[in-house]
């Protein structure tokens, strides 16, 4: 599961996700990609599930890039706990994703294979996403 090796502070406030992904919204490595159409948080479990779905489908055939990283901790209070007494322990890690962000890129697959692989991955994510391919504007 993806998570940072070192962090400066153990817990973070939730914050808000405003605007669109002006960075990381163009294909940088592969020929095909999966782009987020909405904003939200993707947990490391979702990213891992999507990664496994893609690599299993590719069967060592192509190359995969994961363009997001879950570097934000989220906390959760234990069950049946009264309110107060401080913030709960860290439960997991999420990637803050804005609309337009490229989530995954693949290379070395045919168009149909890439579409299928990324569609399988899209089903593991809690955000709407779309398949994109390299065009003249991605130079």
């Amino acid at each position, binding site marked *: *599961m993806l*998570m*940072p*090796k*070192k*962090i*400066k*502070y*153990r817990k973070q406030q939730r914050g808000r996700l405003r605007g*669109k*992904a*002006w960075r990381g*919204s*163009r294909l940088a490595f592969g020929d095909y990609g999966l*782009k987020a*159409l909405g904003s939200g948080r993707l947990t490391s479990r979702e990213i*891992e599930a999507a990664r*496994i779905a893609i*690599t*299993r489908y590719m069967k*060592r*055939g*192509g*190359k995969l890039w994961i363009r997001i990283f879950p570097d934000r901790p989220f906390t959760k209070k*234990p069950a*049946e*706990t*009264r309110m107060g*007494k*401080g913030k*709960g*322990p*860290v439960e997991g890690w999420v990637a803050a994703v804005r*609309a*337009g*962000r490229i989530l995954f890129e693949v*290379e*070395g697959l045919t168009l149909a294979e890439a579409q299928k692989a990324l569609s399988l991955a899209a089903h593991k994510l809690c955000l709407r996403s779309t398949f*994109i391919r390299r065009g*003249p*504007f991605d*130079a």
Partner: protein
Amino acid sequence: MEKLVVEAQPRERKGKNAARQLRRAGRLPAVIYGGKQESLAVSVEPRAVERIMYSEAGHNTVFTLEVKGKGKTPAMVRDWQMEPVKGSLLHVDFLRVALDERLRVKVPMHTRGEAKGVKQEGGILEVIHREVEVECLPTDIPEEFVVDVSELGINQSIRANDLPIDASKLRLLTDANQVLVHVVMPRAVEEEKPAEEVVVEEGAAEPEVISKGKAEKAEGEAEEASTEGEKK
């Protein structure tokens, strides 16, 4: 290539308000610069820019830019901004081109054929660089470089100096030893990994806190004590 004509209108009002109004009216804000002249804010038809970008030479197409009341000039698309979600054009930069002056351009590189290392040995063809930078006259800009990869075996590569470049017209600016395409063995990832990761997850490996000092340790201990207290 030269016959393409793009009509532009000068923009009087600048700033995001005016630019957004223009976009709503179906025009595309753009700027023209270079050629030892002042830059000029203009607006163009987005379709015209798309036609250039989707042409064979793509963004290296030299076309005639006709600005209302300012005359004609040969130009190229130098840069562009896209809307991240819909992928529509937001702004374009045009560069005035002097047809007798050499300029630096990035020419796309495409592969042809299926590599031997992929077909027979199960490798992956990896494209490291999709563009090669060259210096040439605007009239000599190649549309693309096509590289035949059918003879590439595992761990073999094609470098920038392997490209068929006409030295009398073009000068290669990309490092000549730069690998453009190579065939590599896929890394063995697969099946066992999920099982390993479950173990890691159960161990609740927490990342190291960089500034972990006495204060934080004390805080951590206090917190643990408090959660235990709550459970009770």
